[in-house]
């Protein structure tokens, strides 16, 4: 029951996160305020959260953290904008949570992790790729 509640709570938490990133991405696209990111780096970077989510799904906690950490470092290394900064903060929070929560909370945290993988795809495809066109 406690786990059910935690999962429901996490699912609800992702609603404001979705609205928040939707509005930020909208503003960035509207102004075409695109920080530089080469296509090759972008795709390399995008492999990492996808692999990390896959490992999360398999239940490999430390592999997930390792891939997530490399992704975060790569993210900060290749581009800097308020959007990637605020996104990076969410990844950092997720990594810290992954490192410390009990195993019973992993199902709820997995929702968070998949969601932010999807947010990265949205940022990458809409903001970066859209800007290049």
């Amino acid at each position: 029951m406690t786990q059910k509640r935690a999962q429901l709570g996490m699912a609800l938490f992702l609603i404001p996160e979705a609205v928040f990133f939707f509005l930020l991405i909208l503003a960035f696209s509207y102004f075409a305020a695109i920080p530089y990111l080469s296509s090759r780096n972008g795709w390399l970077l995008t492999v990492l959260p996808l692999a990390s989510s896959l490992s999360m799904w398999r239940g490999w906690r430390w592999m997930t953290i390792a891939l997530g950490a490399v992704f975060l470092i790569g993210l900060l290394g290749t581009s800097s904008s308020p959007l990637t900064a605020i996104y990076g903060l969410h990844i950092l929070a997720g990594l810290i949570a992954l490192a410390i929560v009990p195993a019973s909370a992993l199902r709820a945290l997995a929702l968070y992790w998949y969601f932010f993988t999807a947010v990265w795809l949205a940022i990458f495809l809409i903001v970066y790729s859209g800007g290049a066109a």
Partner: protein
Amino acid sequence: MKAWLCAIDHKRVGILYILSALLFFLAGGMEAMVMRAQLAAPNLKLITPEIYNQMFTMHGTTMIFLVAMPVLTGFGVYLVPLMIGANEMALPRLGALSFWLQLFGGVLLYISFASGSAPAAGWFSYAPLSEKAFSTGAGVDYWALALLLITGGVVGSAINLIVTVLTERAPGMTMRLVPLFVWSTFITSVMILFALPALAAALVMLLSDRLLHARFFDPAQGGSPLLWQHYFWIFGHPEVYIVVLPAFGMISEIIPVFSRKPVFGYPFMATSTVAIAFLSYGVWAHHMFAVALGRNFLAVFAAASMLIAVPTGMKIFSWIATMWGGAIRFSTAMMFAVAFLLEFTIGGLSGVAFAAVPVDWQLTDTYFVVAHIHYVLFGGTVFALLAATHYWFPKMSGRLMDDKLGRSSFWLIVLGFNAAVFVQHFLGLMGMTRRVYTYPNLPWFGPLNLISTVGAAILVFGIFIFLCNVGMSLLFGAPAGDDPWNAWTLEWAAASPPLQENFAEIPEVRSRRPLWDRKHPEAPDWMSV
């Protein structure tokens, strides 16, 4: 002391919310009184324009974010588990985290005074005024960071309330049977999840502009101040309903009990709450009619704004129909509830007037707007809160509030509030603009402003009597017993104040008035439905 600092019990967290809101209410009230003193006569120079700007910014921000939202959350956190027959919130530690985020946000906002520059760009901090070029001090940074913390707290408590309502209801209590206060708190929490992130996004962009040299809102560099207005009001208009729907819920609990009749049209009450929530997302641009948005755009938003009066009107008529033919008991709580109906209706009517675009063009940024929002938020929300305090104080403290003091405070508050704010309608129609620290000696401006200031002083005195009543009743009030009002919802089945465990055994629910069923086994509600 430690028990309170580390509290995760919903009753303690709820009371912490209410007490912190009271503290900030006193601060916001003082800021209002400084402004009313400055406006008491034409061409007064008691304070500088800079201080005046800080006062109205802090007053508005405080009353919305540090008073209205936390106090309603506090009542929600305290009452929802009791009303649905639960012993705890679903996520108790999230509840405590939400409260402390909210409180530290408030403290951070007030530290800005110590930094030498409190925010002074208004409670909605329009760009480009709020940009670094025009607000050079750190005030707006404090404002934005404080609001981000508060947003986190508000979202946390909303999630907690939703999960609680969805998973903790007593056996048999379907969503068709929950008390209307629970309904309105539930819908409000859902609204928070969709509205507050718009504020957070706007704040992140504002901070990026100010601290990281971004240019979202700077027209000179390709940004758009209108973007701020859109995002702020996408949050800001649902926010108006976020701070009024729970108050509607309180009134829906109080009026039936003191009319000795079940609430009229429960399904309509619940549905109209949902309708208001939906419509509130389609009306934000009525705050922006003075911006050149295009005729069709204006027409759509004007129509939606008028439409929202329909579900709100349904509620007013349902409350009247509940009282109609009832055996009304005029306790202090009921008097505040009836006053709420009258005062809120005045605010609602001036709101419909605004929805017509030409009227808005004439009146925008005048004192008519100030009068409107005070009738809605003070005449509406605060009057409902005063009714709720008199109604639920016996449950929270185990003692009754004094009725005589209650009546004195009631009349002082009604007289003071109406004197202070009603005249502002006329000042607005005569063209007195808001957010200007003084005004010339035009016909009627001086006397009407003086009436407003005197009214505000009477209002402060009334609030003082009310607070005395709370304090005295806490110490010397007559013992209340579990169910002083002969009410029908489950919180009155618990002890007063409720024990650590609210209910020794979880009650089974078969109707909207479970306590009526228990008191009248010969004619329970569920037999007649």
